[in-house]
Each structure stands twice: as structure tokens, then as C-alpha cells.
């Protein structure tokens, strides 16, 4: 009888005590890589981001400089409450100083708030929402790599200027999809184009034939895919089946990563136009990085998310060294003060609203005959200079920016 009680009590406490067991004293810089490791975004971020963070710490030479750096990682499963609970535990109990990556805008926004409440730091590489440097901007967060505005601006503008002036939107019926559609539509209209139709599909739609038929009937020159992940790849694959490109229309991928192109294969993905802020085959430095990265990550070449994690962690360590401390708010402020320079993004800056600035690139997917092998997928169509690539600082409604 007593044994049973004790057993139950022991079970509960033992199982619950697990997560809190690892207590590390300060004097260590602890970096937490939080992202999706098991579902939609596992390939474009996932374990690769952890590898990128480790490479950043090693390349920075942390041990030689006498800095102790530790990296932990966890899977937020694309759930805001799981992500938020891990973040709280990391910040409160596990002495994590900065959380990086966080794809999935819902989770990123939740953690953005927590980091602000607790005075810690957050470096976002994976999430897309431009609100992170807009309405939801915070003195504890820097939004690295990309956002919906940059993608809409790059792809939308460049395509209209090269003749793609009538658009049909295929939008995922989620806040993120709506935002992408809204931002791109604004850019298209401003550049003199027209939007001749839109259709919103539920998330995780398997069959796009009906929507593709509507897109074909609209006779728009460009079909804008305001969705991501499986929805984008399914739409493109079925578009090839229905002869979209043969019929004279083109797909514009508003959020496409090199891992998606890899999953589709060049015969299906050729001709796709998209904007990214990093490509592994741009110059010698990026190629060298990609080679080392691929060796450590099952042959996968780095996406812009991975590159962003590398770049952000590098700059963070520089700021911590200069500041000789790791207080979240202070480090972020220091990161905004110091100009950035790394092998992957070159020179750049971090603005007052927390937006990292660097050039963006318009890419087109090569034809199978133009590619020399796996991962050789993109050709460069245009470069958008850093000052034009991101939303102007006064248009974001960020409370940190004085008008």
C-alpha cells in the first residue's frame, strides 16, 4: 500500500525532474537553436541550423579567445505552445542566453514576446513575418535572413519589370499566406502590373488541379504561389502535369528554398523564379562553406536559413566579445551598433528596428541541361542592393523607430 503511493510519487517526480536536471552556471554563452526538426521545415532549417551554429562557433575561434560557448537544440514541432514552453524553460532554468532560428511565424512571435519580457536575446533566421521588425519589433530581437516584404518586393518587382504584368494568386489560407499575397500584390500594382484573380486553398492541400484550372482560365502570365512547403511543391508538380508552363504561363515561387527545388527535381522545377538572400554557389567563400556544411549534414547544401544562422551567431559572438557580457538587451543593442561582415552575406548592417540588411537576389531554376550536378540549381537573374531589398524603416510601424 505504502509502496504503491511512494512508487506513484517517485514516478511523477522522477519523470518530471528530467528536464530541469541540467543546471549550468553563468560564465558560459549558451545558444539555443529552436526550430522544426520533424515536419514541414525540417529540411530547410532543422538539424542543418544546429550544424550552422556549431560551424559559426568553431570558425569564430571561441576557445582561443577564452569564451566558453555551448549549443543546445530542440524541436518546437511548429506549435506555439511547445516552442513557448521550451523557450521559457531555456531562459528561466537552463540559463540559455540567446535563441536562434525559429521558423514558423506564430512560434517566432510568441518567443519574441518572451525574450522581451525576460531581457534575453533572439536572432530569427527561419521565420518570415515582417512584423518582427514592424509592429512586433523589440529591443531584444533581430530579424536576420529574409522576410515576406523582401520576398514580395524582390520577386514581384523583378517579374513585372521583365514582362510578367498580369498575376493570378494561389494563396495558402493562413495568415502567412495572406501576408505574402498582400505584400506581393502591393508591389505588383505599384510596378504597373495587374492582378486578374486569386484563389485561397486550405493548408496541406494535396490536389491543386481545380485551382490550376482556374489559374489557366484567368490567362494571367504569372501564377504567384503565396504558400510554402508541400503546398508549393505539389502545386508546381501538378502545374507541370497540366502544362502550365507549356501553355505560356510561369510560376513565381514567393517562398521557395533550394531544398524544395531538390525535392521537385529540375525537370519539374525548371524556369521557376524566386528571391533568396543566399545561394551556396555565389562565390568562393560560400562554396567553401557549402562544402564543409554538406560534409556535416548528410550532403545537403545550405539554404539561406542555415546561412542566416551562421551569420547571426558569428555577429552575436563578436558583440559579446566587444561588450564582455551577455545581457540580452545590451548585446542586441551592440549588434545594431556594429556593422556586420561574414563570409556568407558579406558586409551589412542591423537597423534600429531589428532588421538585418543585406542584398537580395532573384534566381531562376536552371534547365536540366544547364546543371552540372546535384544542388547546381540556380542562375542569377538580378541583384537587389541592400538599401532597396527590405521595407523602408519608416513604413513598418515599429515603436522603436522615432518618427
Amino acid at each position, binding site marked *: 500500500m505504502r509502496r504503491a503511493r511512494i512508487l506513484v510519487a517517485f514516478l511523477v517526480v522522477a519523470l518530471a525532474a*528530467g528536464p*530541469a536536471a541540467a543546471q549550468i552556471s553563468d560564465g558560459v554563452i549558451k545558444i539555443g537553436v529552436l526550430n522544426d526538426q520533424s515536419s514541414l521545415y525540417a529540411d530547410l532549417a*532543422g538539424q542543418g541550423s544546429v550544424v550552422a551554429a556549431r560551424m559559426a562557433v568553431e570558425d569564430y575561434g571561441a576557445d582561443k579567445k577564452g569564451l566558453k560557448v555551448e549549443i543546445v537544440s530542440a524541436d518546437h514541432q511548429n506549435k*506555439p505552445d511547445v516552442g513557448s514552453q521550451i523557450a521559457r524553460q531555456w531562459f528561466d532554468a537552463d540559463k540559455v542566453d540567446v535563441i536562434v532560428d525559429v521558423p514558423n511565424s506564430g512560434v517566432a512571435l510568441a518567443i519574441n514576446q518572451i525574450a522581451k519580457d525576460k531581457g534575453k536575446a533572439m536572432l530569427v533566421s527561419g521565420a518570415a513575418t515582417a512584423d518582427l521588425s514592424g509592429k512586433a519589433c523589440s529591443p531584444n530581437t533581430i530579424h536576420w535572413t529574409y522576410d515576406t516584404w523582401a520576398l514580395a518586393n524582390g520577386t514581384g518587382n523583378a517579374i513585372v519589370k521583365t514582362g510578367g504584368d498580369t498575376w493570378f494568386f494561389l494563396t495558402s489560407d493562413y495568415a502567412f499566406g495572406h501576408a505574402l499575397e498582400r505584400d506581393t500584390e502591393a508591389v505588383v500594382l505599384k510596378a504597373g502590373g495587374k492582378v486578374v484573380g486569386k484563389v485561397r486553398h486550405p493548408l496541406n492541400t494535396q490536389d491543386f488541379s481545380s485551382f490550376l484550372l482556374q489559374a489557366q482560365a484567368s490567362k494571367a502570365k504569372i501564377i504567384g504561389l503565396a504558400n510554402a512547403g508541400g503546398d508549393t511543391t505539389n502545386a508546381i508538380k501538378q502545374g507541370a502535369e497540366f502544362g502550365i508552363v507549356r501553355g505560356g504561363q510561369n510560376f513565381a515561387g514567393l517562398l521557395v528554398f533550394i531544398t524544395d527545388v531538390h525535392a521537385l527535381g529540375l525537370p519539374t522545377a525548371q524556369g521557376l523564379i524566386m528571391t533568396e538572400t543566399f545561394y551556396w554557389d555565389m562565390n568562393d567563400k560560400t562554396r567553401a562553406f557549402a562544402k564543409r556544411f554538406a560534409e556535416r549534414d548528410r550532403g545537403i547544401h545550405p539554404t539561406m536559413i542555415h546561412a542566416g544562422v551562421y551569420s547571426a551567431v558569428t555577429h552575436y559572438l563578436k558583440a559579446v566579445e566587444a561588450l564582455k557580457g551577455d545581457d540580452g538587451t545590451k548585446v542586441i543593442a551592440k549588434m545594431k551598433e556594429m556593422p556586420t561582415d561574414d563570409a556568407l552575406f558579406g558586409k551589412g548592417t542591423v537597423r534600429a528596428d531589428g532588421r538585418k540588411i543585406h542584398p537580395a537576389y532573384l534566381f531562376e531554376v536552371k534547365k536540366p541541361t544547364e546543371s552540372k550536378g546535384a544542388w547546381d540549381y540556380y542562375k542569377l537573374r538580378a541583384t537587389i542592393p541592400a538599401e532597396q531589398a527590405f521595407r523602408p524603416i519608416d513604413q513598418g510601424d515599429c515603436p522603436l523607430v522615432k518618427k
Partner: protein
Amino acid sequence: MPAPAGADVAETAAARVPRHQVQAFAAMVGVLVAAPFFVYPVFLMKALCFALFACAFNLLIGYVGLLSFGHAAFLGSAGYASAHAAKVWGFPPEAAIVFGTLVAALLGGAIGALTIRSRGIYFANITLAFAQMIFFFAVQASFTGGEDGIQAVPRGTLLGVLDLRQTHTMYFTVLGIFLLGFLIVYRAIHSPFGQVLKAIRENEPRAVSLGYRAEHYKLIAFALSATLAGLAGATKAIVFQLASLTDVHWTMSGEVVLMTLLGGLGTIFGPVVGAFIVIGLENYLAQLGAWVTIVQGAIFVVCVLTFRRGVVGELGRIIRKPL
């Protein structure tokens, strides 16, 4: 569902609570009161909310014999209602939680009225259908914030006195709410009402022939289960300061089944233990990515094949008294 372990013995003396159960309850309270000083309290609060959710679910499946595959609808809707009330209407936390619970109660009554005539797999399916419709509503409605959810919900001050931003204050509030819900479930089961439910589960036509309106009793049990699930959801929204689509997704309904099954269907303490184990595992395995689903699936399989009574059910069998 056939009669689960433990529900048969002590029912005859419905008025007196068996001594071993009092002792088990005291042990549980003791552990939970001491725990936040050793274990990260936010994790404990999450586990407590889910434990309450699982107890509510267990009421329906363990004692009425109905497997609902749509209980997430109540958890999530109450969460949205409570989050909205606290953030947009400025309700103090206790009012927000009560509001959320009421929303779940109304939803439970409405859905219950429509579904209670079904049984077995049909019941599971029709509850799933309604839950999917609520999920769709949550995606479309603007106040829910779509996949971003309702963020930055204020914790506020309880009864104008206790600042819930203090973790320990929040914890003991949640513990209080959990114990309240737990005791309501216990009282419902060990009462004449609970006896009738048992009779209905064992032999419905006979219960009806004795003059009991079975549908009424089942509906009340359903609504009660929904209300307590709502209480869990509304509290969770205040603790985590957010309400999101995860809580109305059908996989959440699957998780509560897992917790209850693992802990022990139809036992009193089973859902609590099951919830703590599952949440603990999720935490532990978060570092390992995709392994969480694999382990959860494996637990399902093992439990169904060899461990059908669940942790507490087996314990109850060992000590030969229902827990």
C-alpha cells in the same frame, strides 16, 4: 467499451470514500505542493492543465464508455475565449477563465445534444466531424489570429490581489484549479449520478426499462466533460499567455486519448499520471526531434497490446484496490 479495471469494486459504498483513495489523494497533493521547488514550475503547470483535460476526457470514456475524437474542440475554444477576454476585453484572469469555461460548456451542450445518440465508432467520428468544423472556424475567424494565434495574453492579477506574473503564485492558482476539477470529477463518479452512468454503460436497455432517461444522463456527462476540458484550456491560455490552433487540431484529441490510455482508462488517478508521463516525455525528447512521434506511437502500441490497464490500472491490480 467493456468495463475498465477498477470501476467495479468500491461503488457499492458510494457515500464513503475508501481510505486508500484518500491516502493516494493526499500523496498526490503533497507531491504537487512540493514539486515547484524542485522542478521547473512552467512544465508542471502544463502537465497540470493536461492532467485536468485528461480527467475530463476520462469521465466520458472511462465511466460512460464513449470515445470522443473531438475533445480538442473544447480545450481550444475555451482557450481562445479566455485569451480574447483577457487581452481584448481586459477581463481579470478569474473572469477570463470562467468565461472560457462557459463557452466550452455551451459548446459541449450543443454538440452533445447532436451526437449523444450515436455510439462506438460512429460517436468518435461525429465528434471528430464537429471538432474539424470548429478547427475550420478557428482558422477563418479573424479574432483567433489564424496560425499565429492570440499572443501576449496578460496574466493579470487574481482577484485584484495576487500577481500572476509571479511563477509560484501562478502555479498554486493552477494547482487549485486542477484540484477543483479533479474533485468535481470524483464527486460526479461517486454519486447516485455516477451509479446511473455505470448502469447505463453496463446495460443501457435495462437502465432505460428501469425508468432512467439514458440520453439525458449521457448528455449531462458529456457536457460536464466538455466544461472541465474547457476549464483546462482556459487556464492554459492564461499560463502560457497564448491560444493557438494546436489546441483545436485533431492530433490534440489523439494526445489526450494517449494520456488517458497510458495512465489507465476508468481509473481516478490514471489520467493525471498519464498526462505527466506524456508531457514529460515530450519535454525530454524535444531535443531528439522526430523521435517524439515514434515514441508516442510505440507507447500506444505497447499499451494496447500488453498494458491495457495503464500505469495506475496495473498499480490498482497489484494492490487489489481501485485507484
